[in-house]
């Protein structure tokens, strides 16, 4: 086992040299079911907060379970920290998981739960106690240590599950939608805490979620999965602003997607009308769709200099507090627009508005 039980480094700072993960041609199919993973190649860098994002059934959980060793791939190899662990059973991998249900042992107290992994690895009692105390302080669990796990709230359980995994100082920490059972406020708070913890420890985190906001807030990089295939890998701003295809765009919350009908000189024709793009599309790029993010659509009475100008009618208005969403109709096509609520007069339903879109803000994607 590569984990040295004598490692007595404080949890602050780099606990151990973080490990990179390499996935090469991973395939997995369940009996009778559809393909769960269809050839996944991926490199996760050491010390990275990496998120697997996708709808349910996309294979993200299967991928995480393969990393944990709870599921074996049909094909392909998995390397963690340069060591091939494809066939290593879970209890011999230096990988720990925070489960969606937290999976705290009901017959053990909080401190016994946290110490479980150390006990199984044969860490002596004194050191075990010291490490549990240190992690409890780090995660702010001090007062809970002697409680039974049934007396904990959802957020507390989540913290205990995190402490139980972290105390083992694994090469990689896996998190399987650990925040999905919590209510919105607590969730936001724990997202920040998790990210902070990861940065302080410098450990490699692999996080699974179906919530694109959560993924963007926390991650260094995101992999978007669909049907067992990785669609796009990149930092949050890249995945959000330059999605590679319509699926990724829709999953990241974009709604303004328009099929390209024709490309003529520097103009692209869609249902909205003719638009100028910068840089202009190549002639060969006349298939696919255009993405216009809601927040780049500017509303006003005149077209700004160098912008595409369109005329539309407000059909619906959704008040969201800090911002306003408008559903506009242009040439019989719907365009959604978001405007910051700056306190000026809002447009009303049936108002005619002029829409400005900068050529650089129009992105072409594959269908």
């Amino acid at each position, binding site marked *: *086992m*590569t984990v040295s039980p004598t490692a007595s480094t404080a949890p602050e700072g780099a606990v151990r040299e973080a490990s990179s993960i390499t996935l090469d041609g991973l395939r997995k199919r369940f*009996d009778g079911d559809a393909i769960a993973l269809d050839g996944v190649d991926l490199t996760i860098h050491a010390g990275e907060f990496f998120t697997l994002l996708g709808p349910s059934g996309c294979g993200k959980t299967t991928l995480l379970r393969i990393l944990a*060793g709870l*599921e*074996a791939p049909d094909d392909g190899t998995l390397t963690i920290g340069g*060591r*091939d*662990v*494809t*066939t*290593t*059973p*879970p209890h*011999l991998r230096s990988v720990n998981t925070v489960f969606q249900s937290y999976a705290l042992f009901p017959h053990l107290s909080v401190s016994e739960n946290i110490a479980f992994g150390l006990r199984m690895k044969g860490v002596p009692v004194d050191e075990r106690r010291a490490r549990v105390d240190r992690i409890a302080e780090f995660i702010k669990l001090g007062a809970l240590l002697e409680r039974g796990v049934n007396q904990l709230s959802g957020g507390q359980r989540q913290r205990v599950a995190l402490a139980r995994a972290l105390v083992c100082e694994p090469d990689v920490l896996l998190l399987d939608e650990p925040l999905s059972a919590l209510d919105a406020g607590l969730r936001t708070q724990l997202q920040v805490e998790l990210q902070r913890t990861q940065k302080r420890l410098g450990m490699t985190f692999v996080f699974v979620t179906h919530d694109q906001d959560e993924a963007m807030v926390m991650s260094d990089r995101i992999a978007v999965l669909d049907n067992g295939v990785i669609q796009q890998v990149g930092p949050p701003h890249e995945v959000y602003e330059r999605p590679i295809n319509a699926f990724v765009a829709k999953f990241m919350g974009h709604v303004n997607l328009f099929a390209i009908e024709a490309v003529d000189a520097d103009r692209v024709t869609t249902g909205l009308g003719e638009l100028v793009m910068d840089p202009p599309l190549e002639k060969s790029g006349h298939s696919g769709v255009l993405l216009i993010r809601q927040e780049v659509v500017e509303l006003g009475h005149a077209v700004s200099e160098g912008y595409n100008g369109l005329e539309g009618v407000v059909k619906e208005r959704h008040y969201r507090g800090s911002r306003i969403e408008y559903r506009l109709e242009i040439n019989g096509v719907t365009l959604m627009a978001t405007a910051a609520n700056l306190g000026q007069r809002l447009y009303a339903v049936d108002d005619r508005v002029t829409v400005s879109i900068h050529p650089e803000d129009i992105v072409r994607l594959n269908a």
Partner: protein
Amino acid sequence: MADSPYPLAPYSHSLSPDTRHLLWSVAPGVVWIVIFLVLPSLYLISVAFMTNGPYGQPQMPLSLASFRQLAGFGFLGWSPGNLYTLLRSLWQTLVATGLVVLIAYPIAYHISTCRRQWRAIMLLAVVVPSWTNQVIRAFGWMNLLSPGTPISQVAQFFGFIGPNMGLYPSNFAVTLGLMYNFLPFMVLPLYAAFEKLDTGLVEAARDLYASPLRAFWHAVFPQTLPGLLAGTVLVSIPAFGMYVIPELLGGGRAMMLGNLVASQFSGGSNWPLGAAGALIMLLATLGGLYAMRKVGKRLGGGEEVVI
């Protein structure tokens, strides 16, 4: 530590190790039940089709003689004794089950309307007597019903029994014993049904019909049918095969099928005849369970089995 000392095989989900694990864990129990219950039962069934030997032992050739005897055809021509026993078993089962329903239904309802912390204790109160040995419970009734006891004297006073007689042995004592024995088996599933009762439906029915009787019939009764069904099976199947109670409380004229079967293996020593009776009990059991599954599926609640 480049290579893991553990091969993947035991952890993979391929069929063969998984199947091996299943067999490894259930094999001892399966083998035990097959050898010590399935085989004996099959042997008993085969005995039913053998001929009775001179010392009461089954022998070849195969025949249906035992079933003819069960129907009353003996050396001395036809006699109705065995058929009466069969009919009496059916009748006792029917009466006891019916009376148990009449008692258990209001009791289960009553428990379900009491305060939550009382309910567990009340259920316990119903169940505890059935934890004592059934021989002892029957003996308790022998104490109560024998000649000279207050209950027997009251019965004498009203002329139900002759002077210096007890209420046992009699068919009445057997019915009473059966009811006593099986009451908890009816109360528990009925209580489960009442506890799940959708009170909204009762209120809606009261709102629409106003009459409590009709509200009961249309809103309450149908919801308790699965419990009633489960209880009926739990009571009637073992009641039909009852041995101890008729033996202790019944005397010769209150014999049931279980006693007929048992006597062929001890005193009477006619194994094929006894086995034929046992086969009938087995078929009645399977028939009852089959009927419960059928009806239970239609009621949508056949899964509940109360132990």
